[in-house]
């Protein structure tokens, strides 16, 4: 469900941090440095990176390609390789049997078992293609606001981690208290009253 979809889900963030004169260049460099790199030939099970909004499979952040009107528009791509535990177990058991037959001890140590499991995972992850997931992002830097086009918890966590790593800004999800306390323009006395609130009782 991306920006162009007829129905979208959006998580809104406050971007915590100040911009400076070289901000635009820093954003471009960050997007290029942490742009998505394919993993089909690698044994890792997951990889994340930034990609272009209008071409998810060929990231290009040169020029003003990620700027639309007054906002930055780009995407987060998360490619995952998923393996059924049953498949892993099948290959693991097969490899264990093979190693035991070769060994004259009749047993395998814990570290040998771990090594076998790691080898099995590496081999299997090399053999299967990764499934791409793409989530669009609209970043209004003037208002320190960011819209992430998903409510998925793990995707949000990936975004928060990569965003901080790339741009050195922290993303704070706009949740009810944060919104009321810091984004509603309340005075000090009003903020004190807000902090003292407790749930209303509607049942008596």
């Amino acid at each position, binding site marked *: 469900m991306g*920006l*162009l979809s*007829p*129905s*979208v*889900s*959006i*998580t*809104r963030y406050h971007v915590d941090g100040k911009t400076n004169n070289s901000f635009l260049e820093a954003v471009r460099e960050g997007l290029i440095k942490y742009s998505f790199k394919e993993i089909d030939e690698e044994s890792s099970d997951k990889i994340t990176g930034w990609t272009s*909004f*209008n071409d998810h499979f060929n990231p290009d952040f040169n020029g003003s390609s990620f700027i*639309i*009107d007054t*906002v930055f*528009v780009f995407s987060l791509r998360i490619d995952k390789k998923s393996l059924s535990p049953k498949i892993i177990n099948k290959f693991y058991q097969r490899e264990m049997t093979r190693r035991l037959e070769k060994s004259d001890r009749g047993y395998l140590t814990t570290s040998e078992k771990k090594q076998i499991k790691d080898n099995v995972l590496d081999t299997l992850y090399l053999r299967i293609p990764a499934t791409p997931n793409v989530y669009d992002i*609209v970043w209004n830097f003037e208002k320190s606001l960011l*819209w992430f086009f998903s*409510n998925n918890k793990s995707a949000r966590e990936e975004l928060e981690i990569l965003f901080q790593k790339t741009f050195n800004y922290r993303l*704070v*999800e*706009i*949740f*009810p*208290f*944060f*919104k*009321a*306390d810091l*984004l*509603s*323009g*309340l005075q000090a006395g*009003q903020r004190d*009253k*807000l902090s003292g*609130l*407790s*749930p*209303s*009782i*509607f*049942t*008596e």
Partner: protein
Amino acid sequence: MFDISLSYNRYGFLGCEFLLWLWFCSNNSGLYKLFDNKNEALEIGNKIILEKKNNSSFEKITIKGEEADLEEAMISLKKGAIVKELNFLYKKENKEWRFTITGENLCFTNLKIPDVGFIETKKDIEGFVVEKIYSYNLIFCLIDDLYNKYILLRISDEWKHIVFDIKKWMNY
């Protein structure tokens, strides 16, 4: 800066009460006006999720459907359930926006905006995106304004009168 995790959980009720307040106001527009403009209206849509805490467990009540009867939702409210998610239909002039808000984090799901035309060539994408962003922003500003209005009421002495009226409405 406050502890985010702590305040997220401790004040989670603010978002749920906000949804209840919106529901109450939209059903009692004669008494509580959300908008000054007569061409604007916020209606309850086709889905409500409520949650009731029973000792250490949670009971979840989902009411879904275009012609859904909200009677069961009212019964749940009377029994102490809170509004976790609410679907809305916002009408302005001859346009409609549909969306669901989650009380806990004010996230938007299933947000559908009025048609903004079609993309015929690659050159149309930028204009299409600008139109979409404008339309999403319009609904965010609307909800933000209503939330600010609610927060000002919530910290005022007037809130106890509103709670009284909400109780009356629930038991009507």
